[in-house]
């Protein structure tokens, strides 16, 4: 194995670093956005809820190219968001790291929201009502009740989000292209290597991804089992 990775080029290492950076940022942003969203979905009685839930699940069914296509239109120089940014003297977001980060956040949203929503529903409102009657405010409830009770689901949501972003390809290719150090993540680089007939290099990176994805999923399912046992106790 060490010999295998010894032959990685600086470009490969750059793509690995970029991929990890993208996964990390996506996970952090999604935990911050997904927690309140899942919370709202678990409590809301409003008719809007069904619509929001469908939108959250869209990335599961849409081809990534469709998602990437619309994001490209939206974030590009002539899109609503990109155009506005240009007018403000900033640059549009297509073919940039910020652009693919936004794409990843949307693409991996269901992988954060689903496990959290599930565990919030399982917990129910009672523990929070109890905490409130004992003098705990909203934020206090989040840290002293929700986080410890749904700990397992937070870990699973974070891991799944990270792993799913690792495997992202279509959205990034559509929206970010393949700019080294900016948007050329592992999956895109593997594609480039293959196109250029560099099968050996593509093979190294692919094998690395297979192994790391397996390890991540192994951990997730292990945790899942453990937390299920805890929940049964």
């Amino acid at each position, binding site marked *: 194995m060490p010999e295998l990775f010894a032959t990685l080029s600086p470009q490969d290492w750059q793509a690995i670093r970029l991929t990890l950076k993208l996964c990390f940022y996506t996970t952090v942003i999604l935990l911050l956005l997904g927690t309140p969203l899942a919370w709202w979905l678990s409590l809301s009685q409003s008719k809007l809820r069904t619509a929001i839930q469908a939108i959250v699940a869209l990335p599961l069914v849409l081809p990534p190219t469709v998602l990437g296509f619309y994001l490209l239109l939206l974030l590009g120089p002539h899109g609503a968001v990109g155009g506005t940014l240009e007018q403000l003297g900033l640059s549009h977001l297509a073919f940039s790291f910020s652009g693919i980060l936004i794409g990843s956040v949307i693409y991996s949203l269901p992988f954060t929201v689903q496990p959290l929503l599930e565990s919030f529903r399982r917990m129910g409102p009672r*523990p929070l009502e109890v905490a*409130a*009657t*004992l003098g705990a405010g909203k934020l206090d409830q989040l840290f002293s009740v929700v986080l410890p009770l749904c700990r397992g689901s937070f870990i699973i949501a974070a891991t799944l989000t990270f792993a799913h972003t690792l495997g992202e390809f279509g959205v990034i290719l559509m929206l970010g292209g393949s700019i080294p150090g900016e948007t050329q993540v592992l999956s895109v680089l593997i594609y480039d290597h293959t196109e250029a007939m560099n099968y050996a290099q593509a093979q190294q990176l692919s094998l690395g991804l297979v192994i790391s994805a397996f390890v991540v999923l192994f951990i997730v399912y292990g945790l899942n089992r453990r937390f299920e046992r805890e929940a049964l106790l």
Partner: protein
Amino acid sequence: MTLSVQLTLQRGAFSLQINNSLPLQGVTALFGRSGCGKTTLLRAIAGLDCHADAEVQCGAAIWQQSSRFVPVHQRRIGMVFQESSLLPHLTVAQNLLYGFNRLAKDTLIQLQPEQVIQLLELTPLLQQAPEQLSGGQRQRVALGRALLSQPQLLLLDEPLASLDQQSRSEILPFLQRIASQTGIPMLLVSHQLDDVVKLADQLVLMQDGRIISQGPLAQQLLQPELAAIGAMSLLHAKSHGSVNHLQHLSIGKQQLQLPAPQHGDTASYSPTCYRLRIQARDVALSLKPLSDSSVSNQLQVSISGFNSAPHPAETLVQLTLAGQPLQALLTKQSVERLCLKIGQPIYAQIKAVALD
């Protein structure tokens, strides 16, 4: 302390209309059939549900009025829910201190953790996890936890409903102890008349989303709605100690002797006043005192009225004993045979009494 509540609510066919002031002293039972709106009212008082246009005032504190709504965690309440509500990721000790550790710095601490742990006999449970406890133990911990948040008002939402008969009778003495020793007013939601009669001082009777009457329990028991469930009376008697396992009691000038309660663990706890629960069907009446009867508790009472009983052949006779009401369930035939009239002095033979 007075609790004023104004609450109007329409949910499909169910409507709740409350505009009442409830004087809170000791244990006030909020009694009514399932689905009459008791829990909805209790949750509105606690602030767990926010209903538009509701008004809640507890003593001097305004908890809800027009746009003002004090959130639950800022109301000085302790609440015990119907089913186990211990936080599962905390030990018993951590659960107990959850509210205590969150008290404002200037809170006057009236109940220390040691006191509550002793009062509710929680010492052996402290290091256990909630899932290791029995239903009754969990409710005891939940009670202790609520008490330690130093509440102005203790709200109990059917705290015994999820318990089996044995756990129920295990936890009742603790509720009685809390009521008599802490002085914190309690509002107890219940649809079990038995529990209410063992605990409550005041009774608020709810029916179809309305409060139809309220007042001291002994008087409330005369309400036809309650008599229909099981006519009984509540007498308060002074204790004069026990001799040969017989508890000597007095009501006014009259004496009673009853088998003394056998509480192994509460031997040191001898109340000066007992509550006597007497089923109306356990009271017989005679025009003259009986000397050749096995019934030893014979009280001189006077007839204050007659009420219809659930059964068409029976009548509830209202009696007065040293100012306290007592009910006897007789057949109409007996009432006619004895020529009973209002104001008539008469002898009541009491066949069975439950002592609390």
